C-alpha cells in the first residue's frame, strides 16, 4: 500500500503532471495520423527522454501511449483508416456510423468508453499487478500458441459474412508474417532476396497498406468520403449523446475493460487481440448480433473500452516480467533500461515510486483525455466534410511518411504499396482485411511458441493440451468456431431450399 501511495505522491508534482499532459496532447495529435501510432511517436521521442528524470520520461511516454490509443479511433471512425491494429475493431461499427452521419456520436461513444476503460484498467492493474504477473508467468508456449490461434479464429468468424474467407485471410496473414528468418535457427526462409524481409515483415507498412491505401483508393473510386449530409450543428450534441449512451451501457464497458486488462496482461497478446476479443464477446452476448458491423454503438463501446484498459494491462508484463505487451510498451521498456531500471518482479520493490507513478499516470491520463478529446473533436469531425479529391492526396502523403518513419526505410514504402495492392484484391473479392492484420500481428508469436512447445513436448501434439489453461483455451477455440460454421451451414441450407422452391414448377 505504501508503494502505491508513493507513486501517487510522485505523480502529483509539477514536472510529472506537465510531462504527462504534454505526452497526452502529443499522442492525441500523432495518433490521428495513419501509421503514426503510439509506438512510432514514442520511438521518435525516446532519444529526447534521456535528459529527463526517470518518472518524467516514463510519464511522457505513458501519456503518448494513452493519447495515441485514444486518438487512433478517430480516423478509424471518420475515414475507416485505423492508425493502429487495435483501432481496426473500432472501425467495424464506427465507420458505418460515420457513413450514416453519426460520426460525432461514434466519437462520443469511443471517447467515453475509452476514458472509462482506461480508468478501470488502470485501477485493476494498480491493485492486482503483483498477482497478475504471477498468473501471466503460468502461460507457457502451448498456452501462448493457443491464445494466438484463438485470437485469430474469433476474429475470422465475427468479421465478414463467410467464415472460410475470414479464416483464409487470417492464415494468409500468419504465413506472410513468418516469411522472415525462423526465430530459432535464424535461417532465411521466404525473404525473396530482400534484406528488409529477413528480420520480420514490418507491421506498420502492412497495416498502412492494407487499411489506409486500400481505403483511399476505394474512396477515390467512389468519389465521396463519409457523410453525404451535413450535420455540423449537431456535432456537440451528438458527442454528448454518445457520452450518455455509453454511461447507460456501463456493465458492457466494465466487461470489455476487464477483458482488455486481462488480455493486456498476457505478454505479447497486445491491444489488437483485446479489442477484437471484446468486440467478439459483445457481439456474441448481444440480443441483436446481426446489427454488429452495420453501425452498432455497442461495437464501438466494446472495442474502445477494451483498448484503453489493455494499454494499462500491458504494463503488467512490461514492468513485472520485462516482456512488452505491445509496440509502445516495448519502447517504454527501452526507456526503463535507458534510465537504469531493470524490469522484472523486483521493479515493484526497488523502483516502486516510478512504477506506480506510471500506473497512476495512466489513470489520470484517462480522466484528462475526455475533456481534451471533446475540445479537439470538432476540428477532427470537419474532416468528413472535406471532398475526397482534396483529402485523399494529403492522407496518402501522411501514410507514406508513416510507413517510412518507423525504420527510415524506402523498402517499407514499397512494401506499403504491395500491401495496398493485396488489400484491394482482397476487398474486390470479398475477403475481409481485419483477420489478415491479426494474422500478421499474431504470426510471429504463434510460431515462436509453436516451436518451443514442439521442442518441449518432444515433437508430440499432446503437449499442447496438457495443462488446464490449455484445455480451457482449446474448448473456447472450438466454441468460437462452431456457432459461425453452424450459422453458415444453416444459411446455405435455407438458400438452397429457396432456390429449389423458386425453380420447382409448383413454386
Amino acid at each position, binding site marked *: 500500500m505504501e508503494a502505491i501511495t508513493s507513486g501517487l505522491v510522485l505523480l502529483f508534482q509539477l514536472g510529472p503532471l506537465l510531462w504527462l499532459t504534454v505526452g497526452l496532447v502529443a499522442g492525441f495529435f*500523432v495518433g490521428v495520423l495513419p501509421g503514426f501510432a503510439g509506438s512510432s511517436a514514442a520511438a*521518435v521521442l525516446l532519444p529526447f527522454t534521456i535528459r529527463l528524470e526517470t518518472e518524467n520520461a516514463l510519464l511522457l511516454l505513458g501519456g503518448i501511449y494513452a493519447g495515441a490509443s485514444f486518438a487512433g479511433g478517430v480516423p478509424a471512425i471518420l475515414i*475507416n483508416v485505423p492508425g493502429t491494429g487495435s483501432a481496426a475493431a473500432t*472501425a*467495424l461499427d464506427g465507420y458505418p456510423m460515420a457513413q450514416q452521419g453519426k460520426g460525432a456520436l461514434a466519437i462520443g461513444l469511443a471517447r467515453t468508453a475509452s476514458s472509462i476503460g482506461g480508468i478501470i484498467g488502470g485501477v485493476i492493474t494498480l491493485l492486482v499487478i503483483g498477482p497478475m504477473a504471477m498468473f501471466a508467468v503460468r502461460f507457457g508456449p502451448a498456452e501462448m500458441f493457443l491464445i494466438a490461434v484463438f485470437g485469430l479464429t474469433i476474429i475470422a468468424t465475427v468479421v465478414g459474412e*463467410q467464415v*472460410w*474467407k475470414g479464416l*483464409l485471410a487470417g*492464415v*494468409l496473414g*500468419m*504465413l506472410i508474417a*513468418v*516469411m522472415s528468418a*525462423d526465430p*530459432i*535457427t535464424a*535461417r532465411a*526462409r*521466404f525473404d525473396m532476396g530482400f534484406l528488409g524481409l529477413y528480420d520480420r515483415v514490418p507491421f506498420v507498412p502492412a497495416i498502412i497498406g492494407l487499411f489506409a491505401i486500400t481505403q*483511399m*483508393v*476505394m474512396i*477515390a*473510386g467512389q*468519389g465521396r468520403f463519409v457523410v453525404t449530409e451535413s450535420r455540423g450543428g449537431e456535432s456537440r450534441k451528438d458527442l454528448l449523446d454518445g457520452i450518455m449512451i455509453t454511461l447507460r451501457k456501463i456493465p458492457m464497458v466494465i466487461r470489455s475493460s476487464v477483458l482488455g486488462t486481462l488480455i493486456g496482461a498476457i505478454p505479447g497478446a497486445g491491444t489488437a487481440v483485446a479489442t477484437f476479443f471484446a468486440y467478439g464477446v459483445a457481439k456474441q452476448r448481444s440480443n441483436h448480433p446481426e446489427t454488429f*458491423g452495420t453501425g452498432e454503438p455497442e461495437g464501438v463501446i466494446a472495442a474502445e473500452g477494451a483498448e484503453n484498459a489493455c494499454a494499462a494491462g500491458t504494463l503488467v508484463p512490461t514492468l513485472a516480467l520485462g516482456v512488452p505487451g505491445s509496440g509502445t510498451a516495448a519502447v517504454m521498456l527501452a526507456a526503463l533500461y535507458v534510465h537504469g531500471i531493470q524490469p522484472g518482479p523486483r521493479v515493484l520493490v526497488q523502483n516502486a515510486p516510478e512504477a506506480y507513478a506510471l500506473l497512476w499516470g495512466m489513470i489520470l491520463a484517462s480522466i484528462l483525455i475526455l475533456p481534451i478529446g471533446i475540445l479537439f473533436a470538432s476540428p477532427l469531425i470537419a474532416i468528413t466534410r472535406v471532398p*475526397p*479529391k*482534396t483529402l485523399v*492526396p494529403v492522407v*496518402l*502523403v501522411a501514410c*507514406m*511518411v508513416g510507413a*517510412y*518513419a518507423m525504420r*527510415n526505410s*524506402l523498402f517499407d*514504402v514499397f512494401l506499403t*504499396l504491395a500491401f*495496398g495492392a493485396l488489400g*484491394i*484484391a*482482397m*476487398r*474486390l*473479392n*470479398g*475477403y*475481409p482485411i*481485419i483477420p489478415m492484420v491479426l494474422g500478421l500481428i499474431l504470426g510471429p508469436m504463434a510460431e515462436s511458441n*509453436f*516451436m518451443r512447445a*514442439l521442442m518441449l513436448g518432444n515433437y508430440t501434439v499432446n503437449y499442447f493440451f496438457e495443462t488446464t489453461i490449455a484445455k480451457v483455451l482449446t474448448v473456447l477455440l472450438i466454441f468460437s468456431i462452431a456457432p459461425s460454421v453452424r450459422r453458415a451451414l444453416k444459411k446455405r441450407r435455407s*438458400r*438452397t431450399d429457396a*432456390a429449389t422452391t*423458386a425453380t420447382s414448377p409448383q413454386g
Partner: protein
Amino acid sequence: MEDVDDKPLVTSTQRFAGELLFLAAIVVYGVSFYRSMDGLREIARAFPLFALALLCLLVILNLIGATRRWVSARHGAGGPGGLLVGLGRNLARGRSSIIVFVSLGAFTWLIPRLGFFTAQAAFLTALGFGLGVRPRWRLGLLVGGTVIVSYLLFSTLLGVRLPSGLLL
C-alpha cells in the same frame, strides 16, 4: 468494413473469375513459400508447413464456395452474365482508383530519385489534377500547403529523416 461499392465486377462470372485468380495467386505464393524452405531444419519448417496445410484446406473450401455461388447464380434470376459484360464501363467507373494507385506507384519510384518533398509535390500535382481539383490556385494551395505542413510536421517537429534526392 467493406462496402457494396467495393465490387465493380458486376456479373457472377466476373466475380468467379476474380476469385479464381485471387485463389490461384495464393496457391502460387504457397508453393513458392514451400519450395523456399528446401534444406531447412525440420523445426524451422514446422510452423509454415502447419500454416500452409491450413491454407490449402481453406483455399479448397473457398474454391468450393465460389463455385457454388457461381453455379447458383447461373440458375438464379438474370443468369450469370458474361466475362466481359460491362467490364469497360466498370473500369471507367474505377478510373479515379486507378489514377490514385498509379500515382502512388510513381511517387514511390520517384522518392529516391528526386527526394521526398520534390516527389511529393509532383505526386500531389498529378493526383490533384487527375482527381479534378480545380481551379489551378486551389491545386497550388493543396500542393504548397501539404508540402509545407509535412515538412514542418515530419521533418522539423517529429524529426523524421526523409530521403533527399536530386532537388531536396
